């Protein structure tokens, strides 16, 4: 009971009173400021829980090694030959795979009650989610750097040079940010992390494997070619491959930006609609 230290208790109460007496009401910050503040939170979480970087390093290393050596000899005659083709694609796949963790992270926030605290603040409502996705961009960048480094070790020589590689990564980050809204929506609709993971895998597997990441689609049956043609991941891979390879990306960049905008428009809106009253 507080009788144990009555003076200390009084002291504390008066400090609370003076803390409450603060009538300071700073100017409300804008959407960009609050989004970046939430991005800072995501970085702080990486600092305190560095284990969450395991997936962004292990996934790309595993995929790159596995597919380079599994398919390299059969598909392109040599692994060095194949890695020239595969690396931009596997870079895209690695990042897309780890975007789905956004959904489970958000679900944890909802379950722990942090999310409701944020929703109760007088700020631009999407900023908690935008900031989360911005923080994830840091994880995606790490994944991309790991893949690029490993690729260079395996003999990948991008003709687009550092600028081409950087532009390719940038385009990938834009797409990953947009795809993140699919997972935020799922995590507001589905009630458990397991369900979110399950549905995410169902979406991601056809998106990545049903694309031009691993092989040239010209050998595929017609119906699969048709899917690969409309798959936004294919356009992204085409554009990233061209930017990094120093060739003409054609309409790949425009198509990727259009599909990114569409993802944000559709799933961003759905997310914010659910965000008002998530249960």
């Amino acid at each position: 009971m507080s009788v144990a230290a009555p003076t200390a208790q009084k002291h504390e109460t008066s400090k609370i009173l003076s803390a409450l007496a603060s009538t300071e009401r700073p100017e409300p910050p804008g959407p960009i400021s609050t989004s970046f503040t939430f991005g800072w939170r995501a970085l702080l979480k990486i600092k305190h829980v560095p284990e969450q970087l395991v997936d962004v390093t292990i996934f790309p290393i595993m995929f790159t090694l596995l597919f380079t050596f599994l398919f390299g000899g059969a598909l392109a005659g040599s692994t060095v030959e194949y890695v020239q083709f595969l690396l931009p694609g596997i870079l895209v796949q690695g990042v897309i795979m780890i975007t789905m963790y956004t959904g489970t992270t958000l679900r944890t926030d909802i379950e722990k009650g942090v999310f409701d605290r944020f929703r109760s603040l007088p700020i631009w409502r999407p900023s908690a989610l935008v900031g989360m996705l911005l923080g994830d961009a840091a994880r995606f960048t790490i994944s991309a750097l790991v893949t690029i480094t490993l690729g260079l070790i395996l003999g990948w020589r991008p003709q687009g040079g550092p600028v081409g590689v950087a532009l390719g990564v940038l385009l990938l980050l834009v797409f990953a940010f947009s795809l993140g809204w699919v997972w935020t929506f799922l995590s507001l609709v589905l009630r458990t992390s397991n369900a979110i993971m399950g549905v995410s895998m169902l979406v991601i597997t056809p998106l990545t494997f049903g694309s031009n990441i691993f092989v040239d689609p010209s050998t595929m049956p017609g119906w699969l070619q048709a899917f690969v043609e409309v798959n936004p991941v294919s356009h992204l891979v085409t554009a990233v491959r061209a930017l990094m390879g120093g060739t003409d990306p054609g309409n790949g960049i425009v198509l990727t930006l259009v599909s990114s905008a569409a993802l944000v428009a559709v799933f961003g809106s759905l997310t914010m609609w659910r965000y008002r009253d998530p249960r």
Partner: protein
Amino acid sequence: MTDLAIETHGLVKVFGSTRAVDGVDLAIPRGGVHGFLGPNGAGKTTTIRMLATLSTPDGGTARVLGRDVVREADEVRRRVSLTGQFASVDEDLTGRENLRLIGRLFGYTGPGATRRANELLEAFGLAEAGDRQVKKYSGGMRRRIDIAASIVVTPELLFLDEPTTGLDPRSRNEVWDIIRAMVGSGTTVLLTTQYLDEADQLADRISVIDSGKVIAEGTSSELKASVGSGSLHVRVMDPADRAAAQQILVRELGVEVREGVDPAALDASVDSSTVVTRALGSLDAAGITLAQFALGQPTLDEVFLALTGHTAEPEQSETEEDAA
């Protein structure tokens, strides 16, 4: 403008086939502590979530500090703050980082947010724990950082959802002191609790909620008075005398005298203390020695029993969210 902190008319929230909140009318004035008392699943938290704009009402209207919670949600959010089972801080971050985060989101500059965070850590006795991750805090520290996070910018109205559930008596007292300090500085507090003594200790006025409805409202004394009268508790020295004592009390008091669980105890509701004095005299004259007697107001537990037909103790453990 209105002087009411909270005003609702026919507020309804439906989860599936459950009417979690079923037509709640409230008129809560500014200032002081208003208690929401009720068992688990009564609809307290769901009501607060709607008032704090976290959830949209399915029916009725609610105004908080004169602003509509649906149409003027931003205005409401600017003026209220909440703490409780559903509005927490980030366990992975340190206490200081959490407070700085909230400070930045309210528009403090970097150094300003740091200064405010330090001031609050100091005030809540968390200065030394400031750089530890919140998940390593004890229950009491955890509750204090939750409350500190709610007053980074002093709110006009603070929702406290079961602020002492699961705390040991010492931490509970600390939280009570904090709540009293906040009320002293002019903040209106809306407190939900399933503890009768907490409502009794802190709340100026209490709304008793059961099955999504407000079933009674008033000061603690008014609620007690509405049940009737005070109550007399008697323990006889020798349990063998209880039957005789009961007969005498029934004759003298003219009311029903209940046998307590304790084989020596008797309870009765009484209207005035004069009949009690006479009854005790008769017991003495009959040679029945009393171990103890007490004349008091009914407890809120008795009030709850009288109002709802069941006690306030949680009968089922499922939370309100599970009803969704």
